[in-house]
């Protein structure tokens, strides 16, 4: 009971606005600072013994891939909360996350392609990893389209929430695709049994960049959620004003 009560407290839009008033500037500052440090470290990192300078694409590619998946997990949790508990904030938060996730996933696909062209010798192959990430991108687009496809926004939100839950099944497939099937994409280097296989001089900038992407996502997610809440409030006030003036004339 206690946990449900607490969740309700944070799901209250007014409380969310007050809390994020304080948190958002700090998050934004952390995002800018960690990105600055991460980028400097990324350019000072040594080249790879096989790939040479091309390894630097990884400093964008891997964090973008992580955030593409992380964002989907956040969206799905918010969607589940919206479906089950009907929190007023959950649908708004889920829909605010979708374009961010689509952006990160597209960045991951584009940078991966740019790396693949010189290293693999091809821009694109239909192996299990690449295909499942492309499906993730289409899931985001489908979610956005479905959420906006109904005249009644609540029905759109419900349909989109169900789609996002169905799509969750893709997350473990993306992660384990490189272990379950042989793919052209290399296996995991960081999250794997026996520790990372990246030299610390290359791993550290990568981790800082991953942290920076995390902050960027959180800051933008909160900002987008706040904007959506403010927009909803303005819409309500407008309708009320229109109704009031209609009553006056009548």
């Amino acid at each position: 009971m206690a946990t449900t009560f607490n969740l309700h407290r944070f799901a209250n839009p007014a409380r969310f606005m007050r809390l994020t008033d304080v948190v958002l500037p700090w998050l934004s500052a952390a995002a800018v600072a960690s990105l600055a440090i991460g980028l400097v470290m990324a350019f000072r990192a040594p080249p790879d013994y096989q790939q040479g300078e091309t390894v630097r694409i990884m400093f964008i590619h891997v964090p973008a891939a992580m955030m593409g998946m992380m964002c989907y997990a956040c969206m799905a949790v918010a969607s589940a909360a919206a479906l089950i508990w009907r929190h007023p904030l959950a649908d708004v938060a889920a829909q605010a996350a979708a374009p961010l996730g689509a952006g990160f996933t597209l960045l991951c696909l584009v940078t991966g392609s740019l790396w693949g062209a010189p290293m693999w010798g091809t821009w694109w192959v239909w192996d299990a990893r690449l295909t499942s990430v492309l499906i993730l991108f289409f899931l985001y687009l489908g979610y956005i389209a479905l959420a906006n496809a109904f005249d009644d926004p609540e029905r759109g939100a419900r349909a989109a929430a169900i789609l996002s839950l169905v799509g969750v099944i893709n997350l473990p497939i993306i992660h384990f695709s490189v272990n379950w099937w042989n793919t052209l994409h290399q296996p995991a280097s960081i999250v794997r049994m026996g520790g990372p296989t990246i030299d610390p001089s290359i791993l550290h900038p990568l981790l800082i960049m991953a942290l920076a992407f995390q902050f960027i996502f959180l800051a933008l997610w909160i900002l987008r959620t706040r904007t959506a809440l403010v927009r909803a409030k303005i819409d309500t006030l407008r309708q009320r004003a229109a109704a009031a003036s209609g009553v006056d004339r009548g």
Partner: protein
Amino acid sequence: MTRKRRRLYMVVVGMVCLAVATGLVLNAFNQDLVFFYSPSEVAKKPPVAGRMIRIGGLVEMGSVKRVGGGPGIVFKVTDGKFDLNVAYTGVLPDLFREGQGVVAEGALDQSGALVASQILAKHDEKYMPPEVVAALKKSGQWRENEAASANAAAALPGGKSL
């Protein structure tokens, strides 16, 4: 409260059913989801000559040879147990070298060699600066096959050894 609980159960049951269904489908299509076959699999179950397939493994050390001074090369793809001759004419990716992972796409000819129409280099999951490699080589801890064995593992069906 009961309606919320019912919705929670519906979502949980729905997710479990979906996970089981997806697992079964992926399991059923397992053979079609692999991007390439290893030389062992080709040796066990030779594909029809002339049909397009992809073979993955390591470029065998010392096997790369130029053909008649032209742009064509021949080399062997190995997974440690079996190997397969590959012939190719065209541009090679940056990472193509002996001892490294490779995926060759093409069709088998009558002699059982692969006539490749495309060569893709397969990168392993190791990243390190050249100085570290030099230091490892100097101290004798560097084994040429170490990176190779990781690739060979990936070349086995399903990467079972991971």
